[in-house]
């Protein structure tokens, strides 16, 4: 079994690294598949004689990013163009609006999911539980496990090593354990101010 598990682990490691590299490649591809509008040449021209300062933007390639191509319409007559353009500062900038859109949408969806789950945990689940179990009080397990019962922790450790056959049981069990953990954390941080005060 050790050979098989070692093989599995190796496969997993290779798979993970492959995934990481493809992720990086995708990011590069996304950058390459740019929106046409995502490049610009920004020329800032200060006030000249009686003309006030202006900022000019144009979608233009990097080699054409200079005052003569970008500043249109030229506010000064012919002979002054050179003097005017000497003061202008042109910079080539690019961005990826696709990345921004995807990132914001990912963030908002994760935030929305978390908010829904929070509403479910805080409001909906107690109502559901009360309906399922009638009016019997749910006996919460004693929170101060660690100090009084030294052997209870051992139970916990040994129990974790046994495997549970039913998947649904596993999920339920994991969720219960997670809730207990969060409750412990909340007591340490918010109530007793022991950690992270």
């Amino acid at each position, binding site marked *: 079994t050790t050979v098989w598990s070692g093989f599995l682990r190796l496969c997993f490691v290779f798979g993970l690294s492959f995934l990481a590299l493809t992720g*990086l490649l995708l990011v590069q591809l996304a950058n390459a598949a740019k929106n046409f509008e995502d490049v610009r040449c920004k020329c800032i021209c200060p006030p000249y004689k009686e003309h006030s300062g202006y900022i000019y933007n144009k979608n233009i390639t990097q080699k054409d990013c200079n005052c003569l191509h970008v500043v249109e319409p030229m506010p000064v007559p012919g002979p002054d163009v050179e003097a005017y353009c000497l003061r202008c500062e042109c910079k080539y*900038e690019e961005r*990826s609006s696709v990345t921004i859109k995807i990132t914001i949408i990912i963030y908002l969806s994760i935030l929305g999911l978390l908010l829904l789950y*929070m509403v479910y945990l805080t409001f909906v689940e107690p109502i559901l539980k009360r309906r399922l179990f009638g009016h019997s009080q749910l006996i919460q397990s004693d929170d101060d496990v660690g100090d009084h019962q030294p052997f209870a922790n*051992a139970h916990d*450790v*040994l129990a974790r090593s046994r495997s549970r056959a039913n998947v649904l049981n596993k999920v339920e069990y994991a969720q219960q354990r997670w809730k207990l953990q969060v409750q412990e954390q*909340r007591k340490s*941080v918010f109530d007793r101010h022991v950690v*992270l005060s």
Partner: protein
Amino acid sequence: MDNPGFRRGSFHSSTSDEDLVEISGATLDFSMTDDVPPLDRDLGEFMSYNGGGLNVPNKMMDFLEEPIPGVGTYEDFNTIDWVREKSRDRDRHREITNKSKESTWALIHRVSDAFSGWLLMLLIGLLAGSLAGLIDISAHWMTDLKEGVCLRGFWFNHEHCCWNSEQVTFEDRDKCLEWNTWSQLLISKSEGAFAYILNYFMYVLWALLFALLAVSLVRVFAPYACGSGIPEIKTILSGFIIRGYLGKWTLIIKTITLVLAVSSGLSLGKEGPLVHVACCCGNILCHCFTKYRKNEAKRREVLSAAAAAGVSVAFGAPIGGVLFSLEEVSYYFPLKTLWRSFFAALVAAFTLRSINPFGNSRLVLFYVEFHTPWHLLELVPFVFLGIFGGLWGAFFIRGNIAWCRKRKNTQLGKYPVLEVLVVTAITGILAFPNEYTRMSTSELISELFNDCGLLDSSQLCDYVNNFNTTKGAKLPDRPAGVGVYTAMWQLSLALVMKILITIFTFGMKVPSGLFIPSMAVGAIAGRLLGVGVEQLAYYHHDWPIFSGWCSQGADCITPGLYAMVGAAACLGGVTRMTVSLVVIMFELTGGLEYIVPLMAAAMTSKWVADAIGREGIYDAHIRLNGYPFLEAKEEFTHKTLAMDVMRPRRSDPTLMVLTQDSMTVEDVETLISETTYSGYPVVVSRESQRLVGFVLRRDLIISIENARKKQDGIVSTSIIHFTDHSPPLPPHAPPSLKLRNILDLSPFTVTDQTPMEIVVDIFRKLGLRQCLVTHNGRLLGIITKKDVLKHIAQMANQDPDSILFN
């Protein structure tokens, strides 16, 4: 033959199979009362010549004694045993190397094992970089959401919304058709008193909404996600265990709520929490590799590298990140970790650059691009800025710790959600009128660091320009215009407000960092001083201090540089960083020109701040929380001895020991339930008090539980023995329980006359949890890490009862 109980009980049975055993058993029996270890081994060899009767069963016994799950793991809020972890890793490595000679498969396994560390660093860098990109883009967008929406696509923030507008004047460069403020959206008006009030109201409302979401998510899902995280990570890296602090829920909640907290306009930054996020990534990815999952010491090496990656993406400074991890966060930093941390930091910075959150491949919002020279005489104002930074740092630490202590001990701590909402409301209401507090702190720092070129038209750069004398791009020195004076008093108000409000913001129950607010305070102070010196040089260029190097008409003073130096000074004063601070700042500027001013300011601020209070903000928070962190930088200078610190003291009950073969299971269980020590020394007998080893409480509990369930015949009256062979048992006695495999046979001991300096040094260098004290070869007492910390606190006249954990 498989039954260990049968074998053990066989010494006095008279079955015909065991005749040989009985003879050697008799010899064995005799030797057991004398306890010199080498004789055991010799006897083993002797027995093997006896037809291998007992040797083969010994090997089978070892084969059966597989490690019980749970032995060797640690309790929550306990310290790890560095020595044991390191030796375990060395054993594992040796085993792999030896087995690799056997088959090709084993050789591949060995190569992949060596390669796994680098792969892990690569993955950590990628994940940390991606998360930092997500946080940057989202925070940038949400901050602007308080002011308005972009109609072109709601996901654009102000700057990106107006990115493509073709032609704008300087004054209107922030306005474009697609960007609508809330008043424009709701009442279609953008000027006027009513529009202003509506914008004000929406700003505060959005800020409150974000803060409420942040604190509720933290409270419901991951209470460990609040605060900065760096004090706790420092403690974890020194060997402490906080289960769940670096878990996946903490990671998700910290990422999401960090964006919300930063966007709500509170005076906090995201650099400290980014270190926590990166360490969470490191911890989670460690679970994919056995080498790091099972070994706590190796995992902490990975966490050091992950912390470096975190700072690297926060500032775009890979080298600074590695040095920050080395100086501030890590406890044991072997050289191998240095190279790997650098790799992780580089990968993270590269990933962030690919995501390109700010455009132009910049990694940080306040990247500085000027390279104007400075003069030696300017060191005087720089040192002055350093003094200011040190004073502010000490003042801030005192104020913040006092407020956090109040939050910890009084009623204030019972209303965390209300506290966050009140602070957000106050911050929002005070911040909106002043342009410099309304913008996000990173943008403020960026504007302050910026050198005013000819083309800038912000209020701060409103100098009186005389374009006739302008030759090319080189600017003369210019008198300040009206805009600059307005900016000066607005900035002073902003300075006062930021100084006061950050004291109450840092440490709240939302993710909060400290770097950006301190840099903002320093940058404002620096810019004010810089503009002052600049105007002084303009109006009095004939003074001797200026005439030597600043000719008339030349622009010699760069206020942006003063802002940078001020930011470094204040950050150094609060965190007491030295090398890492200077390297981060010089990586931000991209050049070595400003190293001397930065170093001068950083050193001055550290000296001034150290003169007022010894600890930086993170060490002060560690002490406030009572974590068992043994400070590695301080010298222990008192002349106490080990016997002054060891337990039991004269008034305490005698030392609780286990004997090696005369206690029953029931005795041990009673001892465990009556006392709360985390470990017990094992002695030969109570009369001789000669030391055999040390056994941990958790291992004892788990082994006894396991034995009761799985092994036949173990009852309360079974004898527990830590020796290799079972002690002589009376007839009809239950089989004995062998627990030698959980015994640490090489505990560290010192004599009672050892000076405490050496004991503290041993604890620091080896990472011990406890150390046994002997006198004339007999066990006298025990010193634990908590005792050492209490002793140090007592010697420094601090409260020794504040050390809470073991």
